């Protein structure tokens, strides 16, 4: 069974198809229709709910796309939907502000916006335009043009944060702790389909040995599309989100270690501390809802050729700790990908953690993402560049791209044209032309092959401009955002 709080009510689910999403559970099982389906693919935010978890004696509130959240992952958490905000027949301050600012027109996206704003309000004490955009970038509105919503997200801070959620926070934390202490077998079974939610790496490893065909469910931001878009149910799902050891972010003398269940949101600060240029990339990767659920290991694990983190991890020479049963091995991220959607991962083997080296003293790192829309868009191409320049010469370089081949991969010709060469315009020109030998990109609806190659070459020019001292003018439009 799976036990959670639906707002304040202890709720147990037992007999349900484990492929059921939280959205379908709300709408079709509970007839709670305030949460809307706009796309069922995590791209519009109409279904945004807030999931609260106990951390110490506090709750952390995170927005999530209910349409791509498996219902089993709710165990031990509090699920809050737009209906729950109204209290004693009074709108919640976030709701009232939205009304006051004329923030809704057709109203279909509104509950989703409200929930993203509610999470934002719970997580910050003052308004910050940058945070507003970051928090609401995954909520599409087709009517308003967003200005009144931005206003509402600013004005909601004029009302104190105290609400019926803060008043019941202690009680909710206790209730969640009780659920999490009970340690029942967290599992669902229905008509031959199973969901398991192990609490330890060993249990996870054993389950995968027992069910080699099982689908590993981390954030589910990609896997759940199988259910909602392609109607392909999984027979066995094993959820990693409750595996304690895999939820760790650990900084050692040499490495940053990210457990495979660590989400983008949980690792963002640690990553950006080491490599500040990841700030822009992570904020442009999916939406906050996606980053709250999605894991970096999942981005590597599903072996999509257009994932944004694989080129970064390859450029940073990161490694993966893989486990099968009790056996573990280390594999460099660059060696992990074999061909389109094929990896070195064996049956029953899984990624346990990602190990990222700390930067060297002279190491320079830049990453550029190119997409049609700046926010929440899949890259046409994404390049990552790590280099060291020693007395005007390049002493080390690693360049990797996503979106340029059937797997994320290094640009070896390009690297060779730079390594041990003086860091100047001529080198860059040559390296850019060598890049054409590294990749034969495809044409699809995101971009043509020519564009992919040409902007990737242009990234080298931008890299050169950005590293030139002193920078004369900003060369990225995001610096104006």
């Amino acid at each position, binding site marked *: 069974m799976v036990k959670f709080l639906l707002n304040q009510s202890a709720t147990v689910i037992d007999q349900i198809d484990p492929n059921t999403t939280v959205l379908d559970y709300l709408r079709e099982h509970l007839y709670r229709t305030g949460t809307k389906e706009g796309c069922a693919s995590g791209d519009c935010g109409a279904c945004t709910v807030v999931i609260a978890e106990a951390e110490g004696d506090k709750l952390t509130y995170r927005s999530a796309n209910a349409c791509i959240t498996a219902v089993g992952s709710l165990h031990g958490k509090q699920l809050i939907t737009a209906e729950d905000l109204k209290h004693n027949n009074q709108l919640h301050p976030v709701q009232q502000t939205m009304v006051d600012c*004329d923030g*809704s027109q057709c109203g279909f996206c509104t509950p989703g916006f409200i929930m993203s704003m509610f999470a934002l309000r719970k997580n910050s004490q003052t308004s910050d335009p940058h945070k507003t955009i970051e928090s609401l970038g995954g909520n599409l509105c087709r009517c308003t043009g967003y200005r009144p919503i931005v206003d509402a997200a600013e004005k909601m801070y004029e009302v104190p944060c105290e609400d019926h959620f803060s008043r019941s926070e202690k009680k909710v934390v206790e209730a969640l702790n009780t659920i999490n202490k009970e340690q029942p077998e967290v599992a669902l079974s229905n008509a031959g389909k199973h969901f398991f939610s192990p609490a330890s790496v060993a249990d996870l490893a054993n389950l995968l040995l027992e069910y080699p065909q099982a689908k590993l469910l981390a954030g589910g931001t990609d896997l759940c599309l199988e259910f909602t878009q392609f109607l392909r149910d999984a027979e066995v799902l094993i959820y990693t989100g409750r595996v304690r050891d895999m939820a760790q972010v650990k900084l050692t003398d040499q490495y940053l270690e990210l457990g495979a269940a660590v989400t983008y949101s949980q690792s963002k600060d640690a990553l950006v501390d080491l490599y500040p240029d990841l700030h822009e990339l992570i904020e442009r990767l999916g939406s906050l809802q996606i980053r709250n659920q999605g894991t970096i290991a999942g981005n590597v694990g599903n072996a999509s050729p257009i994932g944004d983190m694989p080129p970064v991890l390859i450029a940073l020479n990161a490694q993966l700790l893989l486990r099968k049963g009790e056996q573990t091995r280390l594999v460099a991220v660059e060696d992990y990908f074999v061909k389109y959607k094929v990896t070195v991962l064996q049956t029953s083997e899984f990624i346990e953690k990602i190990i990222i080296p700390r930067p060297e003293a002279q190491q320079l790192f830049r990453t550029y993402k190119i997409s049609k829309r700046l926010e929440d868009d899949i890259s046409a191409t994404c390049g990552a560049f790590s280099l060291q320049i020693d007395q005007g010469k390049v002493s080390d370089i690693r360049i990797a791209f996503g979106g340029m081949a059937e797997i994320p991969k290094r640009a070896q010709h390009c690297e060779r044209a730079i390594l041990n060469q003086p860091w100047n315009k001529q080198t860059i020109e040559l390296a850019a032309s060598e890049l054409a030998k590294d990749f034969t990109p495809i044409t699809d609806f995101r971009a043509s092959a020519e564009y992919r190659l040409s902007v990737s070459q242009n990234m080298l020019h931008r890299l050169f401009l950005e590293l030139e001292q002193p920078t004369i003018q900003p060369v990225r439009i995001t610096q104006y955002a």
Partner: protein
Amino acid sequence: MRNLPNPPMGDGNTAVNGTVGTGQKHESAHKHVSGEALYVDDQLLPIDGLHAYVGLSTVSRGLIKRLDLSAVRAAEGVVSILTLDDISGHRDIGPVFPGDPIMVNEGDEVQFHGQVLFAVAATSYKLARKAAALAEVEYESLEPSVTIEQGLDQQNFVRPSHTQQRGSAQKVIDQSPQRLEGDFRIGGQEHMYLEGQASLCVPAEDGGMLVYCSTQNPTEGQKLVAEVLDIPMNLVTVDTRRMGGGFGGKETNANQWACLAALLAHKTGRAVKIRLARADDMKATGKRHHFLSQYKVGFNDHGGILGLDMSLSGGCGNSPDLSDAIVDRAMFHSDNAYYLPNVRVIGHRVKTNTVSNTAFRGFGGPQGVLAIEHIIDRIARAVGRDPLDVRKENFYTDEGERNTTHYGQKIEQHIIADLVERLEKTSNYRQRRKQIEAFNQTSPILKKGLALTPVKFGISFTVQHLNQAGALIHIYTDGSIHLNHGGTEMGQGLFTKVAQVVASEFQVHVDSIHCSATRTDKVPNTSPTAASSGTDLNGMAAKDAAIKIKQRMVNFACEHFLIKSDKVKFCSGEVIAGDQHFSFSEFVQLAYMNRVSLSATGYYKTPKIHYDREKAKGQPFFYFANGAAVSEVLVDTLTGENKLLRTDICQDVGKSLNPAIDIGQIEGAFIQGMGWLTTEELVWDDQGRLLTTGPASYKIPAIGDAPTEFNVELLPDSPNAEATIYHSKAVGEPPLMLGISVWSALCDAVASLRNHKLSPLLDAPATPERILKACNELRARAM
């Protein structure tokens, strides 16, 4: 009712809120934010209700050799299957002209990828979808015609071409001091209403049907459901409380799903709900027409246009749908705000094997406006002037012939020139132009662009008979007012505005008025809520109904109190009869006790309009709505990525009924127009299959795409000269075209690479890829 309700407390002699001119909140705002506002899919299905889904064609053109549904029939949960053979009534649901078969059957020719082959009803949504995927279909593939160019080559049209002309364009162009010619491509647009197509049909007595439908056009849905079921219209009721966005995408495109669900409900005797998954919605429903503009223009050395010869070819998809009127509207707007002394405009309705394109906010108008704005930009660079000055050079004025459009309509109210002058000042256009030039000189990679573009948009359906509306008002004995009209609520605030009209007429608080779902059994024979006409038409109809009831109340007061009619006043929630003051509800009760009818219908038809299509002359529009926008963009010339930094808008809405709602319409339309011309790219493969079938691949603007600085002003002190509802103007569509300022500013930024002497080749949408290509081409082009 033997005794009357107690009049509500606090009623009467209070300040009346929510009359016209105030920023009354959207009537459903408090329900939107709490999730209590119900959309079709939120309604509970009756206990034995079924879910329908459709099987779609997987080729864009081909003969269906075999349609084997045995696996569908045998699938879990399946209760019924529907093919064309099951339909005894009409099988073509074309809204104006035939050409839209409700389904195609074995032996028929598939006309587009995503065409409905069959429908299935099952016990759950998921089971219905899974079952629909099990059909086995064999096609004999036929060569599809996919692009406008292919259709033009084959002279393959869904409707005959139409020409509007004045003077002798070709001759004048040939003799002009300067000439330009070119082809310009304008992309289509997916509506991406957040709520997809949905209908719920409940069988009623006598073989009738109650249809809950997310539609802009309940009456057409009613008619078509009646026709496919082969029953009279009086047995079908369509109910539309609200839509989660429409934008034209539910004007005709809601009908098919309602009809299919009704047929399955009729066949099974059970309620049937249908809701399209996003990807199927995008494949199977029409979009904004993409266009090819081919033109020759002659002009003087100041950039004044002397002659224009333009052909506008709209990609209509496989059937006429509304394309006749849509391409007409593109032609009607190919002048935008400019006087074209000698002009010929030909509009072609090109047939392609793609989904039939349909209404979308602006209805062809935006494509016409963009086509001429592109030309103006090119002319400006050719003569070396700021595009704003060339725009001004060409504005309509009230001097002689210069006040008459190429289709013969005289422009009565000249607003554009002053409006643009005002915006130029408030936006600090000239100074910013200089600052931008300075920025561009020192910035190596990032370039800024600036543009001011105007809009003049004709208001009225160009199909004359659609310009009518009805309303129904009941006043109950507690003084509460029930309002119903033929317009539908899709977020635009129509219900709010019409309630404000009624509140103003009776001088009561708007909260005492309840506007209920649009229903064909309350107000019949309604026009679609489209063409920006919702408030103009329904507001007037509701006003008419209110005046009728008021008149009865006045007549009663005169008889009852033996006073003259000028001694009866409705004011501040009261009815004043001579020297007696009654709260509105007290007076209503008095009237009721004295047997006065407190219910009335209202009706309105737009005056003055006519268009002679044979002569291509007339006055198709009751009036014009005007506006202008200035946008400043930043372009990354290494990638084509860009950002909108600032937009200033001034929009003429006449005397605003609700400034808050009007500003909301303007901002929303602007962003939607910007999306159309920037990130929103529909991509088909060469076999006519749509590749961008969801928000992951089709990118509408997100919150960060809104300009950092966004100033919107309603043009003050500019009441509509025509007798529209309280002298307001329509606002739904016109501001969409303000988004053209962003496209034009992007062109300006790219043109800065060659000091604004050359014009970039930048088709719409200006995706980063197209912008980079334009940058590269411009850098390499010889002077």
